[in-house]
């Protein structure tokens, strides 16, 4: 009798447990159910401002749960359920360190930078483009993402880098850019021909210690932070925080930066004004070009 009673209690008990479990799973998958555990107290007040749009974290919360939580996690630390199978890893919002910024290294990005990242997605990673969401929804998500780190409440975004108008694309500009590619030792990671195979490439890790590859210009893939010459300028001048890519803003003058942009374009397998000029020059002057790489490095014998 007692045994039977126990057995019944056990069965009933496990049924109850299963029900509770199922309910909580259902609750999690429900789009806008209130969940005080998600996000920080700032959810009520945090805003984003993108042009005329104002995003509200409170509205972004439900969207985050629906679209972002799987990878970025319920604590915003990039440890969602899918994260273990993803490389590169989802962004950890609690650190407030972002790759694609218009602002100097070590500073917070602008709301617009985050909005552009959500809109564009990150090519060659698992982060898709979120143009399926309305601009308002994306703005709301940006506001919500900012609740994960106290840096957003205590500090403000950096001042965006001033990018002067692009200089003329000439062979002189390309050749000078090539000199800079050697002198600034871009080739140490990106390789002498921009294949992402420089001597240090194999050793690179991100700030969490995960292996990371330098961009391979010959792949023809888009850049992670945009596609235009201005985007390219911004990428190396501000650096990709959290990755090995440093900022060159303190050491490269604007005109030189444009020269470097023009040279970098020649490393890509596209028909551009830069590649056309470069191919013609190589055909006539190829033999006079000093190779890029360790042989031309200072101190080499």
């Amino acid at each position, binding site marked *: 009798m007692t045994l039977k009673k126990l057995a019944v209690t056990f069965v009933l008990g496990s049924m109850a447990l299963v029900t509770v479990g199922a309910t909580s799973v259902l609750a999690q998958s429900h789009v806008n159910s209130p969940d005080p555990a998600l996000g920080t107290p700032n959810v009520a007040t945090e805003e984003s401002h993108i042009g005329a749009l104002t995003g509200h974290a409170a509205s972004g919360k439900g969207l985050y749960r629906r679209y972002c939580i799987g990878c970025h996690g319920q604590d915003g630390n990039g440890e969602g359920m899918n994260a273990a199978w993803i490389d590169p890893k989802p962004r950890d919002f609690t650190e407030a360190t972002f790759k694609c910024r218009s602002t100097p290294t070590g500073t917070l990005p602008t709301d617009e930078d985050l909005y552009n990242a959500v809109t564009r997605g990150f090519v060659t990673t698992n982060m898709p483009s979120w143009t399926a969401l309305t601009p308002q929804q994306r703005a709301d998500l940006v506001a919500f993402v900012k609740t994960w780190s106290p840096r957003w409440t205590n500090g403000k975004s950096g001042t965006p880098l001033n990018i002067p108008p692009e200089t003329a694309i000439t062979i002189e500009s390309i050749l000078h850019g090539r000199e800079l590619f050697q002198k600034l030792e871009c080739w140490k990671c990106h390789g002498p021909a921009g294949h992402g195979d420089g001597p240090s490439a194999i050793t690179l890790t991100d700030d969490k210690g995960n292996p990371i590859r330098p961009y391979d210009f010959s792949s023809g893939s888009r850049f992670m932070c945009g596609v235009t010459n201005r985007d390219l300028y911004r990428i190396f001048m501000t*650096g990709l925080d959290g990755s090995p890519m440093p900022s060159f803003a*303190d050491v490269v003058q604007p005109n030189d930066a444009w020269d470097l942009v023009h040279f970098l374009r020649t490393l890509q397998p596209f028909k551009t004004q830069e590649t056309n000029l470069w191919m013609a020059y190589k055909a006539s002057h190829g033999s006079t070009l000093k190779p890029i790489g360790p042989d031309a490095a200072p101190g080499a014998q």
Partner: protein
Amino acid sequence: MRSRYFMALAVAVLLSSGMLMFATPPAGSGSISGKVTYTGTPPKMKPIDMSKEPSCAKQHATPVLTENVATGSGSALQWVVVYISGGDQGSSTPSQAVRYDQKGCQYLPHVLPMQVAQQLQIYNDDQTSHNIHPLSKVNPEWNKSQPPGSPPIDTKYDKPEFVPVKCNIHPWMHGYFVVLNTSHYAVSGEDGSFDIKGLPPGKYTLAAWQEQYPAQSQEVTITGSETKTVNFVFKVLPY
């Protein structure tokens, strides 16, 4: 006449400056000194292959060793930061900057202590580009390229933190910025010794930080201007 007048003036100035010195005595005259040692077998520090950077390799007659567990004779443990973590925090941020060098593809010093908000100047003395990448978590993380001949990077940290520093171009380069709330600190030397001076009487928590092993602390009471001897022993493993 005139020279005598100047003499008198000079004497007066000397006297008053002397009185000023008396009027503001040093914060304290107690001190803590001691030695940091290890027990167990320390890991072998490996020679660094700098052949990929000839301009650095030729600066070293013998290969440089890694420094994460730097030992000396008598079981001495080097590069341990000993600092006051509880009690009088000493003087506020000094106006003098601390200097960090990238030389021969090494960080000099390997461990650089500083105070919160103290100016930090980072130099590249090499003929090669470095990127200096302090992996801070509490403070904002940044990463800057510093080609040869660039001016020093001027920066500071606003919060206390132990910040690992690396150069992504030369992956063997490792160092630490140790940002402290206190002005009472010292780094153990090659012989493991350290010396913290200028402590006012009081109760202190003395902490010892080493980059690879768990931190330690001890309670120390300073009375008057005594010198207390405090030693730390780190248990090390060969791997």
